């Protein structure tokens, strides 16, 4: 969708996107020529239709850096995670191992974190570093 400032015959630029309010987004566009501003207010169907494409809505600088892999079923995964770690000693992740975890999609992270922590505990490690990740990869034949 594009917006045109009719008096200036100029394409408008997206300025801001307000947080969703009951499924509606308020997306403000401005004309770079005359400064005229207008807001597009989406209904919930329109919001969801675009979000279902797995894209982010916002100014160009935001969408280039955004993590588009928000966990689509985050509410279900913590149940597994919590059950797995309940009553067990906390395991620390090094920054390098956390960085590798951050590289993978959000929807896989909780499961990966839980599985690696279990593997570490079973092998007597309380800190997960890249060596542990590589050892897990070897162990599971990946």
């Amino acid at each position: 969708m594009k917006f045109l400032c009719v008096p200036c015959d100029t394409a408008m630029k997206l300025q801001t996107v307000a947080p969703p309010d009951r499924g509606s987004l308020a997306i403000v566009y401005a004309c770079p020529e005359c400064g005229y501003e207008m807001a597009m207010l989406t209904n919930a169907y329109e919001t969801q239709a675009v979000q279902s494409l797995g894209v982010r809505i916002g100014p160009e600088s935001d969408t280039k850096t955004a993590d588009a892999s928000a966990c689509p079923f985050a509410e279900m995964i913590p149940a597994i995670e919590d059950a797995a770690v309940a009553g067990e000693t906390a395991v620390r992740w090094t920054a390098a191992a956390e960085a590798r975890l951050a590289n993978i999609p959000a929807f896989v992270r909780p499961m990966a974190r839980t599985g690696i922590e279990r593997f570490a505990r079973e092998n007597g490690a309380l800190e997960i570093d890249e060596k542990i990740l590589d050892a897990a990869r070897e162990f599971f034949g990946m």
Partner: protein
Amino acid sequence: MKGYHDIVGDGGSRILEQVAEQRGRITDGLAGVRHLLAVGSGKGGVGKSTLTLHLAGALRARGLRIAILDADFNGPSQARMAGVQGAPFVPGRHKVLLPRTGNGIAVFSMGSLIPESEALEFESAAHGESHTWRATREFALLGEILGSVEWGAIDLLMFDLPPGAERTVQYADFLGPRMSFVLVTIPSDVARGVVARSVAALSKGPNRLLGYVENMSGYYCRDCNAVKPLFVPSEPAALGIPCLGTVPFDPELARQCDLGNPLTELRETPVGRAFDEIAQRLLDCLDAKTAVRLSSS
């Protein structure tokens, strides 16, 4: 006044560019995969998942490097059948590494991520009304999976498709002409009728339709070591594509699938031999340039 096509970009969100970038990540991610093969039907309950896993096993036994993507996000079964339900996904250097079966087949299944007591749900601004957006969201998820898994250099990525003739065609559209198809039916007119619809729908696109497999073609009785009829014989309507083989029903195979022990001691049974023969035909078809391309015939 300017029209839509006179304006470059959309002024902010770069929606089309983001979608193109997603597609680029998928293409890059699959660059090392020699063949893409979808196992579909249109009909549910005909044994697509069982065939996918065991054909993968038979091809693996021939030395092929294979991965399976369980594309049935709402009714995933590969994690359980392949015995990888408890195996973790491990973060690789840049992408995620998949759990593997004992014989080395990499498996992605939502069954590894979501317990069987839960249904796959997505957050929704539309508060339900999922008929208006759900398919789009699931294909975005598929794209995310394809682009974020370390598939590596493999010979074959097999897609275990969900039921629905329309879904079968949507996968063809999404993954493009690289994807070849095998359809699964059973010896029932009802099932063949649905599969015929999938054939008709796929024939309008550019994808190669290698043929079909008739599953549950009989009942393998281990006591008398013979295959007996399972369905009343009929004169089935031709599907217009090659039959790659038939596979009898073996209760022991079903039991082993439930237990997550694929392909155990099957090779010397009629079922095992059937998988082996079909795997060889599939291999011949995938490597042949003469495979059926209905839209050009």
